[in-house]
């Protein structure tokens, strides 16, 4: 059995001598915590040199590299070269190779977590491998090295500045003893006295390593996010007690092997390499692949009392809404039509503004309180589509900045703001907070509403959860349309896809057949050609009120689910067919007894748009990420948000028509008319 001698230079209580099984092999690990005692560490190394197979030293200050040189503390050097026969490792190679890879990997999966954030380093010099990656990801870095190493009251903000600082300071550092008492206080109490500390403690995320953090007063970590190399059992307890919100742990796999740290892991690689061989970058890459190492977020304290804030951008659905502004209340109603287009034009030059807020949202799943800040841009749908996308982007991005400053963690794009340009992608890229279009929940709620309406009218037979009828999706190649088509293809006998561009329809048909090879799909560019045979019609176009469907040709008893804003089926047209039920889908209710919306969203009561509800849901789940972007909604995301909605208590409020809720009487009336019409046809 191979024997590993582990010396925990920066710990004082963790001693053991045990046989540990690690990936099929058993090692004897003897650990001594030498509590910054250089002489003792050196003595133990010399005593056991040649008697064990590898010596692993953890917590020792690493080699600090800077341009054209490096700095290694003389004491660290003394310890590293103390052994003459047994190879000595300190985990540096693993950190240098693995950490940049781990952070990149995490960034690719969680872009907003590690990008455009204010990130503080206790000592960037000791964590250079983190600095380079996080600087590349456009983060605002605050390096507290001057305070950490020499208690000087200023911070560094770039790796170039860090290099210069270290180069200048290396003669001083060489003469400093490595000892516990040299670690300064990061207590909140010192914050007012020290501007550098104040700046450091105002960071969103703090980066440290276990060896340093163990000796700090951790109270300043309350509610913070920490990036850390590894969290041992003892530190985990301390972090939890300190109120840390969450930690991104670079090597969480080692948590189940509580006795193994970076240097022991490198020691194991060294043992496999055999005598004479030195651990190389390639060995570490192989280790990462073999053990499938990857970083992980660990939540330490669910902050249910703290209100999570999201933001949402809306706009007037027509120029009529602009005239509701107090500025125009004195204009005689008779003249409004004259001024309407001018007001629409003039108002579109106004910058976006804070409109109001929704509070009292409480998750049914975890009790988390959430509030929404509603911002508005003044463009009507017409203006949003007419204007250059860049102009709208700038306007919305300014609102994103405002929302970020107000403490929002995510921004939702309402109605037409998510149609502009590339459907949120550019805005998300430039925004300081993640952005979502909310289309995933819009799709889900549309389907909830449609299903309920069809079941209530009862004209379509249902066998084994499958409707034996036809469903038509107008605007099927749009983002909501495509996903709706995929999901409905599983529960309807026949599905008719309608959109203006045939080639897109063919692509969509192929996509659906991949999910459900047995689906019966008809594609068409003309909605009217198939409306007479459809039991459910979902319209989701950006027709801006243009007629997409002749309602007079629709089958009696059909449910038309109009997802578009403005509506594809106008109120006037809907009245012409009392035997057809036109519903306006996408309206849901948020959880919370004392829900309060202090603004007019154009909906009744506490009902909100599904896209807004998606943003609120992500805040409730603490999933601050760009959940839905671009025009292509992901089928899996719709399923995921549907599940989150059920868990957190976001429900279909009522089925809505043009004039508010559709009551049970209206359903019965429509049913009667449809039966009559169907009888007439016979």
């Amino acid at each position, binding site marked *: 059995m191979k024997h590993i001698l582990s010396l925990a230079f920066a710990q004082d209580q963790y*001693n053991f001598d045990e046989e540990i099984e690690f990936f099929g092999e058993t090692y004897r690990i003897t650990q001594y915590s030498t509590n910054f005692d250089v002489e*003792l560490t050196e003595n133990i190394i010399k005593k056991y040199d040649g008697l064990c197979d590898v010596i692993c030293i953890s917590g020792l200050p690493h080699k600090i590299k800077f341009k054209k040189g490096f700095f290694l503390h003389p004491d660290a050097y003394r310890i590293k070269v103390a052994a003459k026969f047994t190879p000595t490792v300190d985990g540096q190679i693993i950190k240098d190779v693995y950490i940049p890879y781990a952070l990149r990997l995490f960034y690719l999966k969680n872009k907003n977590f590690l990008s455009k954030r204010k990130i503080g380093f206790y000592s960037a010099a000791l964590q250079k491998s983190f600095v380079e990656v996080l600087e590349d990801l456009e983060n605002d870095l605050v390096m507290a090295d001057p305070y950490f190493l020499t208690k000087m009251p200023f911070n560094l903000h770039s790796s170039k500045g860090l290099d210069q600082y270290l180069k200048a300071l290396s003669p001083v550092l060489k003469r400093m003893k490595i000892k516990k008492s040299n670690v300064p206080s990061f207590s909140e109490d010192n914050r007012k006295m020290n501007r550098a500390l104040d700046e450091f403690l105002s960071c969103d995320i703090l980066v440290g390593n276990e060896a340093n953090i163990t000796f700090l007063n951790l109270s300043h970590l309350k509610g913070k996010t920490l990036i850390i190399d590894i969290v041992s059992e003892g530190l985990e307890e301390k972090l939890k007690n300190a109120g840390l919100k969450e930690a991104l742990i670079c090597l969480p796999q080692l948590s189940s092997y509580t006795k193994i740290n970076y240097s022991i892991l490198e020691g194991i690689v060294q043992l496999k390499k055999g005598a004479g061989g030195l651990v190389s970058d390639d060995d570490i890459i192989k280790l990462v692949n073999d053990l499938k190492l990857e970083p992980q977020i660990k939540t330490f304290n669910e902050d249910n009392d703290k209100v999570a804030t999201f933001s949402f951008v809306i706009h007037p659905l027509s120029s009529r809404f602009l005239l509701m502004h107090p500025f125009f209340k004195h204009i005689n109603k008779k003249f409004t039509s004259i001024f309407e287009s001018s007001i629409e034009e003039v108002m579109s030059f106004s910058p976006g503004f804070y409109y109001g807020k929704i509070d009292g949202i409480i998750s049914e799943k975890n009790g988390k309180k959430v509030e929404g800040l509603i911002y508005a841009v003044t463009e009507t749908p017409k203006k949003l589509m007419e204007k250059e996308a860049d102009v709208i982007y700038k306007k919305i991005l300014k609102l994103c900045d405002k929302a970020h400053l107000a403490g929002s963690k995510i921004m939702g794009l309402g109605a037409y703001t998510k149609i502009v340009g590339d459907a949120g992608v550019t805005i998300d890229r430039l925004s300081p907070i993640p952005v979502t279009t909310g289309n995933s929940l819009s799709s889900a709620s549309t389907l909830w509403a449609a299903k309920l309406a069809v079941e209530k009218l009862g004209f379509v037979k249902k066998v084994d959860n499958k409707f034996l009828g036809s469903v038509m999706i107008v605007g099927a190649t749009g983002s909501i349309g495509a996903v709706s088509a995929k999901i409905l293809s599983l529960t309807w006998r026949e599905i008719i896809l309608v959109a203006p561009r045939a080639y897109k329809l063919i692509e969509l048909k192929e996509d659906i057949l991949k999910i459900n090879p047995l689906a019966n799909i008809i594609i068409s560019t003309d909605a009217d050609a198939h409306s007479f045979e459809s039991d459910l019609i979902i319209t989701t176009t950006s027709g801006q009120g243009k007629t997409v469907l002749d309602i007079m040709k629709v089958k009696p008893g059909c449910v038309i689910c109009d997802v578009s804003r403005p509506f594809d089926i106008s109120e006037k047209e809907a009245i012409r067919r009392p035997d057809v039920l036109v519903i306006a889908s996408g309206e849901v209710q948020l959880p919370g007894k004392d829900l309060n919306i202090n603004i007019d969203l154009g909906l009744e009561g506490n009902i909100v748009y599904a896209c807004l509800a998606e943003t609120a849901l992500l805040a409730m789940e603490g999933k601050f990420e760009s959940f839905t972007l671009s025009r292509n909604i992901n089928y899996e995301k719709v399923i995921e948000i549907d599940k989150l909605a059920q868990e957190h208590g976001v429900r279909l409020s009522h089925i809505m028509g043009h004039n508010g809720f559709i009551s049970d009487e209206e359903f019965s009336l429509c049913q009667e008319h449809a039966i009559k019409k169907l009888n007439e046809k016979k």
Partner: protein
Amino acid sequence: MESFHFFVKGLIGLMNIFITGATGFLGQYLIRELSPNFETIYILSRNSQFTGFNDLPNVKIVKGDITQLEIIEDIMMRDLILEESDFVIHAAALYDLKASHSDCYLQNIVGTQNTLRLVKKMKKLKALYYISTIAVGDDQSFFLEEDHLPVRKKFNDFYSETKYFAEKIVRETQHNGATRIIRPGIIIGDSKTGKMDKIDGPYYFIEAMKKYSTFLKSIPFIPLSFNPRTKIPIIPVDHCARYISLLIGRDLGVPELKTYHLISNEVPTVKQFLDDLNEAFSIKTQYIPVFKNPVHNSVLKLLGIPKELVPFMFSKLSYDKTRTIEELPEMQESTYSAFKGILFLKTL
């Protein structure tokens, strides 16, 4: 009760024991107490030529060093001890309040961990007796419970620190036998002969008194940093050895971890001790207690009393002895008044 003792003693007579630190002050007394009751006593010594126990035929010297990864060099002997040991006493430690961290660590922590490695491999082990110290207690608190190791972050000296962590390791280590932790008080000389092998604890004052008694006779009072009510938790070495031997003899191997505080039943306060010292040296000087301060620390230094001793002169701690008295009623007979005459007599 008496028959029970004979019964256990009868069993013990067939057993073997392995002891570290047997050549130390306490160890030598311990071996003589244990010798009649064990078939073989293996004692670990760096010096294989140790002659101190030549008169005891059942004592075997085993060459070894607790600071080595394998504490017994000879593989055959190691296997024999692993095979035959029924009891282990780990008494080896570096007891020196002025020793460096490195030296204390190597002897007390590394040594304990290496010994435990050996202990874990003993298949027929009944119990491990680990000789700790009452110095593991926090002198800022008021009470040290028997079965509890308090959480401590600050230590006055490296001996207390390393013994504290060593006890922690012992408490956390699983092996085939039961764990008994013995925390003796300040070990003083033999209660019958007054024999003491080193200057320690109260002996520093006695030594100081020897040097300066003539001078002190002419001084009516002297300010000194001490708390007059602080008790000096002493125990004569022969008492301590006998009590450990009795505990081993009565041990039924119950797996529960047990801790014993071996401190004489009546111990003096610092004030009482100084008064007795005055009486022994025929001095009438009054000692005026003052708080810890640098000036008086210097005075102590002049008297040859190490600064590491100062915290013990202010300790508020008292020690729980419930279990110890219950299992070792004989300890009530160990009183300061009974042996103080010998203590001072020998020194004069």
